[in-house]
């Protein structure tokens, strides 16, 4: 190694940052080259001086600063804890909300299935097992046939045609068929009414137990609940005619006046 080779290695050499082989070569050169040795010695001296003096002149951190730093760490920890708690609460609230929404969707999906099943069974015109116009006689006929007592609703304008036992989905129901007058034509229209027990609350009737109006296969389906008993009225009557038919029943909320979404009701049924 000659002087130009050694020069860039001098500083790393003094800092102990050269590999062993380079260190030996540098030392060999310094032993034989006086100018480089002098330069190196001066650099070493300068480096030591700067290091010693700079460190000696640097004050320690003020005690007040140290105390303040530790206080701030503790208050930051408290803040972090609160933030984490808030985040956790927010997440929990989110989960609860999703569960609630999911549950709500599931309920309305279930209700939709009951509405569809009631409408399709009514549409199929199953033969009646008994033909009796008096509600009392029908109630007597149902006595003992189902797991619950059947109160046959009295509709002032409609007359009962007859009844049978008919399922809505998995629920065994009393099915009563009525003839109801309409304002638009002289021809009475058929109204089917399913009455079944639902103490498991499988059928979601909507808020506050008010009758809810659904629609399936061109039929309007009005569902309401009285205690554990669910009523599903299936008809191709217009909404206004249904309103005529229903409000007289005591102890029951009237059909909501605001139009429920009548999902895709065919134009032919609106007249």
């Amino acid at each position: 190694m000659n002087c130009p080779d050694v020069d860039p290695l001098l500083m790393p050499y003094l800092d102990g940052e050269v590999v062993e082989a380079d260190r030996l070569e540098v030392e060999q050169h310094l032993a034989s080259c006086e100018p480089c040795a002098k330069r190196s010695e001066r650099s070493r001296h300068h480096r030591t001086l700067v290091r010693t003096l700079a460190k000696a002149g640097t004050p320690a951190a003020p005690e007040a600063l140290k105390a303040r730093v530790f206080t701030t760490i503790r208050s930051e920890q408290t803040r972090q804890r609160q933030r984490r708690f808030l985040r956790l609460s927010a997440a929990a609230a989110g989960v609860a909300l999703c569960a609630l929404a999911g549950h709500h969707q599931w309920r309305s999906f279930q209700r939709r299935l009951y509405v569809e099943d009631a409408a399709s069974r009514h549409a199929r015109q199953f033969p009646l097992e008994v033909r009796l116009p008096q509600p009392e006689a029908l109630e007597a006929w149902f006595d003992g046939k189902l797991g619950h007592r059947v109160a046959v609703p009295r509709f002032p304008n409609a007359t009962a045609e007859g009844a049978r036992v008919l399922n809505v989905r998995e629920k065994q129901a009393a099915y009563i068929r009525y003839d109801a007058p309409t304002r638009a034509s002289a021809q009475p229209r058929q109204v089917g009414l399913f009455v079944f027990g639902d103490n498991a609350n499988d059928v979601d009737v909507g808020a506050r137990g008010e009758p809810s109006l659904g629609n399936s296969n061109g039929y309007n389906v009005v569902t309401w609940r009285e205690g554990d008993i669910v009523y599903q009225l299936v008809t191709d009557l217009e909404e206004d005619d249904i309103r005529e038919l229903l409000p007289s029943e005591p102890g029951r909320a009237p059909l909501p006046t605001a139009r429920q979404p009548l999902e895709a009701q065919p134009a032919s049924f609106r007249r």
Partner: protein
Amino acid sequence: MLGFSTRSDKARAEFEGLVAPWLDALYGGALRLTRNERDAEDLVQDTVMRAYRFFDKFQRGTNFRAWLFKILTNTFINGYRRQVKERSLGDESERQSVEAQFFSSDTTDQAQNPEDYLVQRVMSEDVLKAIDTLPIDFRMVVILADLQEFSYKEIAEILDVPVGTVMSRLFRGRRQLEAVLRKDEHEAAAPLVDLNAYRERKKLG
């Protein structure tokens, strides 16, 4: 709630234990970066706070001191550089107070010889002043290498630059420092860089 609160207490205690030995070093570095006490204190506080916030990112068993100084230099570069430039002319009074502080404080290595002690104090002040004149890139490397005695590799990691860059900045920074001190030497009645020569001169004079 209880479980996680004790866990975070444990982490905090661990952090406090790790950071406590380096507060003086952080403050010393911050003082040279900001060149005034007030900003240095703020910088140390910000640095420790950020370190605490990112403590879960720190890999246990690795170099905590280097990690702290990386946060220190980053915090300085991001938040303090401009601010300090703007008031660099106005901090003469604060510099005075630094001097006053370490003349009055009889802390570390008060030499057996009070004269040596005084001489060293004055010379220390000159060296620190000289470091403060360096451009920030050189100053950071000199602070890390000569004040904090980090290795080239550690400095490269702290500043996020190649080792070659560290070497060239350190080389130029030290050369500039030497030039400044030599200039002082010529201006002053006595050469302040050589303690023995200075003492000799005192004895003669």
